[in-house]
């Protein structure tokens, strides 16, 4: 094996490697492994039993529902918002672009409180919602609203970046060649932004699965009703049901790993395309 030209065979090399590996082990590998060890501490039957309680199943299905809704919403809204910001002369499009940073900048708990202030019983729109017999806070809409809010920027910002980079020339070319707006979108725009959309959706899914703060404020954490998986884990853990907590953590952890894998695969694809684009420039 070739020696590193700069560190050579000095003492620094083994020390650096030991520190790096040790640090990663303490911060990443051990906690990760501990989830699985704790989940299976009482054996496989206990693990399955803990995962299949009605409350756990309900929490898991609610989390998946919130994720799917967030994915669909972001697929439509994200692309539309990105298009509005980058390809129209819509007044206020710069403000949309700025507002998209808000869900990242604001603490999820604060985000939850904002909606509580708006839609809660004592909130500004509370009386109106009550008269219409619509419940948002401490109900399913609250969970969905919180999830959508925290995932809002992911698809939109990814697509804005790609639209800005590619510029409108291909779309103009399509128009001069007789394509209408729908044809241009499906034949020209979508192929150019598809990796950005997938990438944004992967980030959306990861965030939707893991969201705690905003959901915990808005949902009211009603067991078997508005409790999502992260909330369920927190609750059973507080009740000293360690195995149940870790068992429920296993699917979340596996989904996180799957997300990272998808993220890597997409990054590889899009960087390959970018590399081709750069080669094309020269």
């Amino acid at each position, binding site marked *: 094996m070739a020696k590193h030209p700069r560190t050579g065979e000095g003492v620094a090399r083994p020390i650096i490697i030991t520190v790096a590996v040790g640090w990663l082990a303490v911060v990443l590998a051990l906690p990760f492994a501990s989830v699985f060890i704790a989940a299976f501490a009482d054996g496989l039957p206990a693990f399955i039993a803990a995962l299949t309680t009605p409350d756990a199943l309900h929490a898991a299905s609610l989390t998946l529902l919130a994720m799917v809704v967030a994915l669909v919403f972001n697929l439509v809204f994200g692309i539309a918002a990105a298009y509005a910001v980058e390809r129209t002369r819509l007044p206020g499009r710069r403000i949309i672009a700025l507002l998209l940073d808000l869900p990242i900048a604001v603490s999820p708990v604060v985000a939850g409180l904002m909606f509580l202030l708006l839609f809660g019983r004592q909130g500004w729109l509370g009386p109106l919602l009550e008269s219409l017999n619509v419940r948002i806070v401490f109900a399913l809409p609250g969970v969905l609203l919180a999830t959508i809010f925290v995932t809002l920027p992911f698809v939109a910002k990814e697509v804005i970046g790609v639209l800005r980079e590619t510029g409108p020339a291909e779309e103009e070319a399509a*128009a001069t060649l007789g394509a209408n707006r729908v044809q241009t979108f499906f034949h020209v725009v979508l192929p*150019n932004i598809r990796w950005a959309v997938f990438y944004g959706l992967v980030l959306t899914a990861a965030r939707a699965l893991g969201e705690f703060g905003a959901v915990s404020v808005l949902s009211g954490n009603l067991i078997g009703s508005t409790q999502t998986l992260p909330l369920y884990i927190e609750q059973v853990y507080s009740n000293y049901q360690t195995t149940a907590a870790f068992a429920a953590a296993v699917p979340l952890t596996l989904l996180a790993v799957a997300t990272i894998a998808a993220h890597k695969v997409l990054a590889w694809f899009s960087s390959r395309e970018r590399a081709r684009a750069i080669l094309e420039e020269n």
Partner: protein
Amino acid sequence: MNAPATHAPTGIEIAGVSRTFGGFQALRDVDLEVRPGELIALLGPSGSGKTTLLRIIAGLETHDTGSVRIAEREATGVDVRSRGIGFVFQHYALFKHMTVAANIGFSLRMRNAPKAQIAEKVAELLALFRLDGLAARYPDELSGGQRQRVALARALASEPEILLLDEPFGALDARVRQELRRWLRRLHDDIGVTTVFVTHDQEEALEVADRVVVMNAGRIEQIGTPEEVFGNPANEFVMTFLGNVNVFHGRVEEGCVRVGGLLVDAAGGAGEASNRAASSAKAYVRPHEIDIVTEAGDGHGVPATVTFVNPVGASVKVELATSDGSSILVELTRERYGELNLERNQRVYLRARSATVFPDYSI
């Protein structure tokens, strides 16, 4: 649709077109008539409005005032798709994720033409544009010249009545550019489609176009054949923009302009200058219209000192400095250079064979 290839070409009439972007006036009251079947160049520096004008003709940009008529029909408000134009973008704007064949066939696919007809048209264009064997390639697998030809083939696939090109050769290296512009001229002569192209390269415009439209600061300065705009420029901007030119400051005397010891005949705008009783004038002389003599002779000639000689090329370029410190460029034939045997710092006299004179109001 399916217009026969032999249909009568279409003209364009532009009247009183203005366009403002924010506070920047890109076009000011532009009038232009493009004759059917003509190859016309919009020539000007960046910011002169030439690309804006091209995009307005295409319908990619709107105009604030005035009218654009294509084929004697008002085109204002008509969508890009319905104008019957083909457009070649500066950086080609090929569809990156489509093959060459898919790019060329795009316009026919969008119009739901039968598959067999698309295949036939694509094959025909691949052959015409010397792209055989590249049908399955992607744009990033092509050279600059090939991409340019794909862009042209794609724009012509639906047999547009008007072809618009934005700096078609701008992104190519010098040798390919030379080759492609001669080829564009031949192509135009073959298919006869009315063509408007934008360029900032005067050589390109003069070599390729039937007529050249010289633009500056949102206005048209002059419209004419290459001979007209080069040989008989309407104003100082056109004079200086089209090729190298030397400026001599002088005085108007009885229809002539005296520059130092040099008396220039009242060509160009000099008559106009004397009419307006301008006492000063600027004489513009092309480098190849100046001769160098070593003896003052009859007294006609501007004294100058040789500062640099570049003997490489078809003509010999000599740089000189006059007594007032201004720099003069002269192009001599090889024969004349051989006779003169010039050296650096040699004192010589300049004589202009012809000059274009404009009144000088700056003094």
